[in-house]
C-alpha cells in the first residue's frame, strides 16, 4: 500500500518551482488546499519541488494513507494529521493530494 494513485514526477520538468502558478498534484485531483474548512480527506499522493520537500512532508506524517482534516486556510493552512496539528504555507498544501472522505 504505497500510495496507489501516487503521481510523483521524477526530476525537474516543472520549471522553477516555488515561483509561478500553483502546482497541482494531478489534473482533476484535489489537494489539501482545496479541502473545505472542517472537511477530512485521505492523502493519496504527495508532490514536492525537491527531495528535501518530500522528506519534509513525510516527516510531518503526510504520506499516502494518512487522514487529514483542514482547520483553517488563512493566514496559513492549518490541519490535523492523526492527533497532531500542523501549519503549512499554500505552496506545501498544494503539494498534498487528497481524496475527500
Amino acid at each position, binding site marked *: 500500500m504505497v500510495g496507489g494513485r501516487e503521481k510523483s514526477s521524477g526530476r525537474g520538468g516543472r520549471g522553477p518551482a516555488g*515561483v509561478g502558478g500553483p502546482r497541482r498534484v494531478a489534473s482533476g485531483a484535489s489537494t489539501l488546499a482545496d479541502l473545505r474548512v472542517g472537511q477530512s480527506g485521505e492523502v493519496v499522493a504527495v508532490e514536492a519541488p525537491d527531495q528535501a520537500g518530500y*522528506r519534509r512532508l513525510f516527516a510531518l506524517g503526510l504520506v499516502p494513507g494518512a487522514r487529514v482534516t483542514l482547520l483553517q486556510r488563512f*493566514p496559513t493552512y*492549518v490541519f490535523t494529521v492523526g*492527533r497532531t496539528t500542523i501549519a503549512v504555507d499554500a505552496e506545501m498544501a498544494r503539494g498534498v493530494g487528497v481524496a475527500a472522505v
Partner: protein
Amino acid sequence: MAPGSRVKVAIVGCPNVGKSVLFGHLTGRYVSVSNYPGTTVEVARGLGRWAGLTFEVSDTPGLYSLTCITDEERTARRLLTRERPDWLIHVADAKNLDRMLPLTFQLVEAGFRVLLVVNMLDEARSAGLVVDTACLSARLGLPVIGAALTRGEGVSEIRDFLARPAAGEMGVRAAGEMRVRAGEAKTKRPAAAPIYDRPTEAALTAIAERLRGRYAMTPRAVALLALQEDPETLDLVRAEEREGWPGIRRFLDQANQGPRPLRHRPPPAAHHLARTVAAACVREVAKPRVSAGQILGDLLLRPLFGVPVLAAVVYFGLYRFVGGFGAGTLVDALDRALFLDLVNPWLNRTVDILFAGELWRELLAHEYGLLTLGVRYAVAIVLPIVGTFFVAFAVLEDSGYLPRLALLADRLLKPLGLSGRALIPLTLGLGCGTMATLVTRTLETRRERVLATFLLALGVPCSAQLGVTLGVLAARPRALAIWSLTVLTVLVGGGTLAARLLPGRAAPFFMEVPPLRLPSFGNIWRKTTARMAWYFREVLPVFLAASLVIWLGRLVGLFPLALSGLATVCRWLGLPKEVSLVFLFGFLRRDYGAAGLYDLAPSLPTTSLVVAAVTLTLFVPCLAQTVLMFKERGPKVALAIVGFVFPLAILSGYVLSQVLALTEGAGW
C-alpha cells in the same frame, strides 16, 4: 559488564517529546525542555552514575527521520554514526505513536540498539488514550518503557534497564535482524521493521550487495538512505566505494526513474506499519476532553483574535518587560550604579597600580579596556536585556505560543524570502543583534539564514540603539516619524531586493502546532539559566574580541584613518564632520554611536539629525555582531553583507537628505 567501563547512551527523538527532560533526569544536568528553534541546537552531554556504573549520556538535537533535512538532524545523525552509542533511547510522544515509530524502524534498520521510551503518558491519558507498552514491545521486538518524564514517571525503570548486566552484553546485530532482548527479556524475534514492496526490496538487496566500504550503519540502512537520495549518504558511498560508485549511481538513477520512483516508497510503507502497530497497541477509552487551553489555542490561530493578542504580547512582553524593565531599570542599576560608579573606577586604579606601561593599562582598563568595556558591556548592558528576553521567550515557548506567532507572520515575511520561523531571530534582534545572529542557525535553509542575518545587519535596531535613538528623536515627532518610515522602507526594500538577488527558492513554511500549556516556573527558571550560561560561553568571547580589536585599532592608528574616510561620507550626506566620530563609535558599539548622537543633537538641525539617525541605524552592525557574522556565515557571505549594507546605508542617507532638502526648500 566490566566495572569501571562506561556505557554510552544517546537520547534521540523528534522535537518536543521530552528528550532534554530525560537528559536532565539521567545526568542531573538540565539543558532545555523543548526544541523550538533556538534551544537544543548543540549536543548536550553529561555523566550519570547509578548502580555502580558510569553512563555517558548525550542529548541529540531533534530528529524526525534519518533522511535528514535540517542541520540539527544532520548533527544528530552524525553523532549516532560516529560515536556508535551502546544504547539509543528513542523518546516518543505517546499521543502520536503512529508518527513516531517510523524513526524507531529506521534506527533498528540501521543496526542500533534501541530502547523505546513512550513518553507523555499523562497527556495521552487526558486525551483518552491507553498505551499498552507490553503490546508494543512484543510487536516491535524492542524493550519499551512507558513514562511521564516531566513528572519523573518511568525514570527509575529506564535507569534500571540500562544498568542491567544483560543490557551491556548484547552483541551488535546483523542487518535486518534483531537480537536485542525485549523489555521482559526472552525471545530473539525479528524486529518489526517494515518490509517494502518487491521492487524496493530487490533494489535494496542489489545496492546492499554492491557495498564494499566500511559504514557505521547496516548495508540495508545505507542502501535505504542512498535509494532515497540522501545527499550526505551519497557522498559517503561515493567516497567509500570509489570504482564501485558509478555502477551504484547508475543503478540508483534507474531505480528512481519514471512516474513511480522507488525513492518515494519506503516512507509510506514505514508509516503504514507504524499505524498498524499503533492501532493494535493504543486504545481510545474516552473522548478527548476539550479544554479551555485548546479553545484559546485554536482562537490564537485566527488573525482576528491572534493579531491583537500578538500586539499585546509584543507591547507587554517585549516593549515593557524587555525594553522598559531589562534595558531600562536593570541596565541603569548595573551599568551606572555598579560598573561606572564602583567597579570601573576600582579596576582603573588597580590596573594602574599593577601595570606600568600605558599599553597594558589601556588594554585592560580605561575607556576601551577588556575589563572596563568588554566585560562591562557583556555583563551590565547586554546581559540584563537578553536575560529578560530569555525569560519572556521561555514563557512564550513553553506556553506553545511561538509556533502560532510564526504562523501568523509567515505571509508577511514571504516577500522577504523568509518563512514565519524567521520571526524569532528577527524579534530577538530587537533585543540584541549579536544574539539574534547566533539564533539564525536554527533556520532551515542556508538561504534563509543569510537573508535573516542580512536584515539583522541592515536595520533591525537592537534595544540599546533603539532606546537611545528614541530618546534623541522623541522631542521631534516629525523626525521620529521620518526615521521609522525610512528604516522600515529600507528594511522591506533591501530585504526584497536581497531575496531577489540571492539564488534559491523561498523557504517553505511548515510547523507543528503544539497544544497551549501553562508554563511551569521551574522550567522557565532552568531554561533561562541554561541559556544565560550558553550566552556567556558564546557571546562573552566575542565582546572581548571586539575590545581587543578596538585596542589594536588605536594602537596602530587605524582610527584616524577610518575617521577621515567617514568624514568624506559625512560631507556627502551634508552632515558636520563631528558626526563621523558617531559613525565610528556606532560600529564599535551601536548604542555608543547613538549616545554620541545624543550629545550632538542640540547643535544639529532636524534634517541632519534624521539623516544621521537613519544612516546610523542602517549602517553596519556593531563590531560584536560583525565578528559573529563572520563566524556563523563565513567570510564570503559576511563580506558580501557588509558590502551590501554599507553602500545601501549611505545611499539611503543620501537620498533622504536630498528629499528632505527638496521638500524643505518647497516650504515643507
